């Protein structure tokens, strides 16, 4: 067994510096690496390129890095819930690249799996395809999209073990598994870190080979963005 454990979130983020490109897991505020985001705020690293499905809300998630002006460029599929984001984008302070959600997921998976690029029908005939190679297969048009390139991938899992094996919960899984192994170094923060051997190998979602550092997270807020309910019967 190869031990991936680090003792603190500070140690987990060692090497993250100004100007780097980071992949961050999560969908909305669901399954985001809360501890790592807080530590990035504390570190004050700037000029970051952040690749994540969304950009958080004004006072949580990646919104915290935006407030602090630490992000130079944001790559995302949907950024609708963040006023500060919109302000920085419209004023030109923040560079933004919007890409289709499935293309974002596949660009991560391609990097993880060693594919330099792939063809997808998404975005053909739209501004997303501008400047990109297109090609017909069986009479349908496709756009060539490239694997992401990033320095660090930062993900959040429900359970993990000291070998770096990960298990996700509910829809907090989302982009997290696809981002593991899609950057030079993958950091996983988990709600519950257990000794190797305690997780059932049949239930592992991401094998430890895709993870370089794993750390026990703490104080998860798990904020709900849209609390929708129906009355008790």
């Amino acid at each position, binding site marked *: 067994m190869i031990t991936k454990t680090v003792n603190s979130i500070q140690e987990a983020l060692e090497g993250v510096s100004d100007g780097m490109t980071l992949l961050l897991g999560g969908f909305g505020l669901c399954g985001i690496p809360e501890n790592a985001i807080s530590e990035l705020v504390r570190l004050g690293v700037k000029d970051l390129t952040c690749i994540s499905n969304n950009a958080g809300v004004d006072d949580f998630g990646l919104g915290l890095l935006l407030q602090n002006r630490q992000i130079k460029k944001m790559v995302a599929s949907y950024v609708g819930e963040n006023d500060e984001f919109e302000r920085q984008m419209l004023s030109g302070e923040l560079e933004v690249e919007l890409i289709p*959600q499935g293309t974002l997921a596949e660009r991560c998976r391609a990097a993880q799996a060693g594919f330099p690029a792939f063809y997808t*029908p998404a975005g053909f005939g*739209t501004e997303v395809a501008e400047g990109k190679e297109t090609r017909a297969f069986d009479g349908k048009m496709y756009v060539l999209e490239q694997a992401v390139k990033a320095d660090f991938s930062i993900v959040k899992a429900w359970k993990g073990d000291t070998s770096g094996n990960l298990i996700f919960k*509910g829809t907090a899984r*989302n982009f997290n*598994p696809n981002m593991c192994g899609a950057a030079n170094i993958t950091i996983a923060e988990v709600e519950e870190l257990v000794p190797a051997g305690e997780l059932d190998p049949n239930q592992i979602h991401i094998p430890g080979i895709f993870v370089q550092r794993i750390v026990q997270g703490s104080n998860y807020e798990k904020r709900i963005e*849209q609390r*929708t309910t129906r009355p*008790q019967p």
Partner: protein
Amino acid sequence: MLDKFGIAKRIAKEVKNGYYVNLGIGIPTLVANFVRTDIEVEFQSENGILGMGPFPFEGEEDADLINAGKQTITALPGASYFDSATSFSMIRGQHVDLTILGAMEVSEDGDIANWKIPGRMVKGMGGAMDLVASADNIIVAMMHTNKAGASKLLKHCSLPLTGVRCVKKIVTNLAVLDVTKDGFKLLERAPNVSIEQIKAATDGRLVIEGEIPEMI
């Protein structure tokens, strides 16, 4: 004339036994409330759940269980969770039978625009570009005209496109229409809506053949 619930109710009739269905944000989400209960249907949400159920009871919300609109939801028996790449394999690989989504504009060729108003609103396309580029069966749910009263069924879209030649059917507050090679083919009128009203609210080519029945 229909309200958003009426539009959702009419679209629900298009959901058939055995369908896997992806519902977009807004009116499409309401469709789930009107699907017949005697057929087997599973709803997919692209953030990673198949077999999505209704909103949770008060006090039972789970932060780790949301839909693509970031709303708290529940999972029904037989549900599954998966990562985003797998989710879009279901969509891009055409395993999802029906996609229902909203739009700002649709053209008579079936082009759709729903993600950006240059200089004013840029929220992003989310999964919409993947959905419209891949799905065989796409229904658009929207109002026939915008808030300023201008038609949303156009000859050409004026806004940045989400996808080209992909919309098959449109259900609005005024009508049900198919997108054909000849333009928008009028199939049904909403209750108490005349053909003249539909003509006046449609900028693109409108095909009217024979008697047009009122929606049931």
